């Protein structure tokens, strides 16, 4: 018993320096940023040795989401959501596809694996510059068809002003209600099998009610803005998404390939013996077994997509509403417009969005651990 508590003490003392350092340099600074985001630090004397700051509560946040001047930020936020979804779908889909092909052990598998993984080793700023050149309006990809005698493409990869899937930010509240209803119903359907009573009472019922209310009473809800403001998926971001998928598909490929190799050959042989086709093997056995890998790839890639900065900076520059991203506007607001409080608020919004991805993951992992 004594031995054990001494061991615990030792472990605690060994961990203490890193606890203190992380406490100060990670959580301390996050706390400081939250504090700054609730002040009015900015403008005239912002860079004085002792700048004047006043506490203004959540004013910066409400300004970001409903202020007349912040439509740029809102566009960036919408862009970021579309980026994340497209990057996840693209990188995971493509990575898995390549991994399945390589799992068939073609000739020169090692060489191919290296080739596909190689883009990962480039820095974003380098690949961004390469892609900027490739997607230039009068060069690169657009002139490829002329080599086979076709007219050149005219698509403006990084400067198109068209947008699809547009919605009106005025109806922010309604959109939030729809999302909430959707989430409730999904959880309800998931719980339905195990505890049907609870599912209907706690999840499905409220979900349907909220959804109906948002649908029928949407026009009664207060509007977030006094004028119409539409945001959507800008086609100009396609170029950036392509470049990022190109760079990260190799990474997910490596993850999946390691997973596929870890599945025992016996299992595969048994499945084949039972008459499973290759497609059925991957669909019903291999891919479901790699669920932990998929989850961690989703977490990592969504974080990367939220931190996206250098590749956009290299490809389309700092002021470009079509391809803007909150990380860029945070930098510009802070260091160009000297608006430190607003920059901090943008940082916290991004931090919250990232937390939305990682917290459920950590919680579910923790639960599994204690149950097991």
């Amino acid at each position, binding site marked *: 018993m004594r031995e054990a508590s001494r061991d615990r003490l030792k472990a605690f003392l060994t961990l203490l320096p890193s606890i203190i350092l992380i406490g100060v340099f990670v959580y301390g600074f996050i706390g400081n940023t939250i504090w700054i985001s609730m002040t009015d630090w*900015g*403008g*005239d*004397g*912002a*860079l*004085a*040795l002792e*700048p004047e700051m006043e506490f203004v509560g959540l004013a910066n946040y409400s300004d970001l989401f409903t202020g*007349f*001047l912040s*439509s*740029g930020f809102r*566009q960036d936020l919408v862009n970021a959501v579309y980026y994340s979804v497209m990057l996840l779908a693209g990188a995971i889909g493509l990575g898995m596809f390549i991994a399945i092909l390589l799992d068939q052990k073609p000739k020169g598998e090692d060489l191919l694996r290296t080739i596909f993984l190689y883009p990962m080793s480039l820095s974003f700023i380098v690949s961004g510059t390469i892609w*900027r050149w490739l*997607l*230039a*309006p*009068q060069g690169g990809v657009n002139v490829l068809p002329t080599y086979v005698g076709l007219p050149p493409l005219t698509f*403006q*990869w*990084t*400067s198109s*002003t068209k947008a699809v899937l547009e919605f009106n930010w005025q109806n922010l509240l309604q959109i939030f209600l729809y999302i909430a209803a959707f989430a409730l119903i999904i959880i309800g359907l998931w719980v339905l099998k195990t505890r049907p009573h609870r599912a209907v009472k706690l999840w499905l019922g409220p979900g349907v009610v909220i959804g109906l209310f948002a649908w029928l009473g949407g026009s009664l809800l207060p509007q977030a803005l006094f*004028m119409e403001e539409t945001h959507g998926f800008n086609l*100009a971001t396609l170029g950036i998404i392509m470049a990022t998928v190109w760079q990260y598909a190799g990474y997910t490929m490596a993850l999946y390939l390691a997973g596929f190799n870890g599945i025992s050959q016996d299992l595969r042989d048994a499945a084949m013996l039972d008459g499973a086709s290759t497609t059925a093997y991957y669909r019903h056995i291999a891919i479901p077994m790699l669920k932990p890998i998929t989850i961690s790839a989703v977490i990592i890639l969504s974080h990367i997509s939220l931190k996206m900065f250098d590749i956009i900076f290299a490809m*389309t*520059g*700092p*002021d*470009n*509403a*079509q391809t*803007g991203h909150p990380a860029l*506007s945070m*930098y*510009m*607001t802070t*260091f*160009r*417009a*000297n*608006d430190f409080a607003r920059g901090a608020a943008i940082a916290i919004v991004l931090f919250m969005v990232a937390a939305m991805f990682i917290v459920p993951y950590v919680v579910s992992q923790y639960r599994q651990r204690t149950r097991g």
Partner: protein
Amino acid sequence: MKMSLAKLFLVLAVALMLTVPQVSMAKELNGDLEIFSWWAGDEGPALQALIKQYKDQNPNVNVIDATVTGGSGVNAKAVLKTRMLGNEPPDSFQVHSGQELIGTWVKADRMEDLTFLFKEQGWMDSFPAGLIKLIGTDKGIWSVPVTIHRSNVMWYIPANLKKWGVTAPKTWADFLKIAPKLQKEGIVPLAMAENWTVNHLWESVALASLGADKWDALWAGKLRFDSPEVVKAWELFGKILKYTNKDASSLSWQQATDMMIDGKAAFNIMGDWAAGYMSTTKKMAPGKDFGWATSPDTGGEFMFLSDSFGLPKGAPNRDNAIAWLKVLGSKKGSDTFNPLKGSISPRTDSDLSKYNAYLQSASADFGKDRVVGSLAHGVAANETFMGGFSQIMEMFLKTHNAKAVSMACQQLADKSKIGK
């Protein structure tokens, strides 16, 4: 108590320097001098020439050339801010003269007043009085201007215009008349590039639409941004935008100028660094291979911007920095730097024979035209306004709603305390 003692010593030191300039001149300077700028690339050689001149005078000083690349100093300014907030200023740093310096660093009480240097060197007479007013406040003069650039210039290729049968428009009405014709022939009437060049075009159009007096009134807070005159300027700007290239946001300013050189576009409105690009990089002869005119409706007006260097409080090598500022403001320094950089000297007594044909004409105009400050390049408004304006411009490019952006500008002006 400690602070005031330090200040007292500083005052004493300054007084000592003023009373015995002979002694301080004779003293050999040594140690380091860190010069912080964004002059890399095409502008690098001009800076090197200045540093060489400084080294000749002060051979024992070790010059540290801290250059951070990036157009208009976007990156350099961010690095500078983190350094200043960390209380680690360089000895002297580059900054656009005017409100960009005053609204950021002077308001924050981080700069030293340079009036003493202007008086000691006789610069009060060698710089134009109007310029000194724009780089100073009632509390002092805050930087030593090194260059003068003109922002409202329209560039064209005379041979191309002749081929297409058009002349450089004197007014925007003229431009709007010839533009559809050019467009029909597949020529972009006005070449434009990424966001900041759109701001650059806007200031020329707004100056044309408002006139110099109202332009000044706008920045003095005497004319509101949501007034009908400004809305009209935005409407005119919207009409002109129809005749620009659609892929603008993915081009650099050089690529937009290239479009004009290659005959894909007829005109380009850009600052006169475009002349430096065409004459130095493209080896074109000014006046023959390329031509210029003041941008439409702004004849007799000179919209200027200027690079300058200041002296931050607490500079580690103050004496070396002051010697550097003396080189920058001197006639010799100015005439060494500017012909290489492709700008004109802010001094009234510069040696014009060292400059090319374009720069000579710009210099003549600077002497007689009405001088107004540029928005896109930091003279007219502080950084809070400039940062927000770039976002408002994106809003306009998307919606083309002149009234809404005018209202947004007024909100931004209130927030950034324009004219107060």
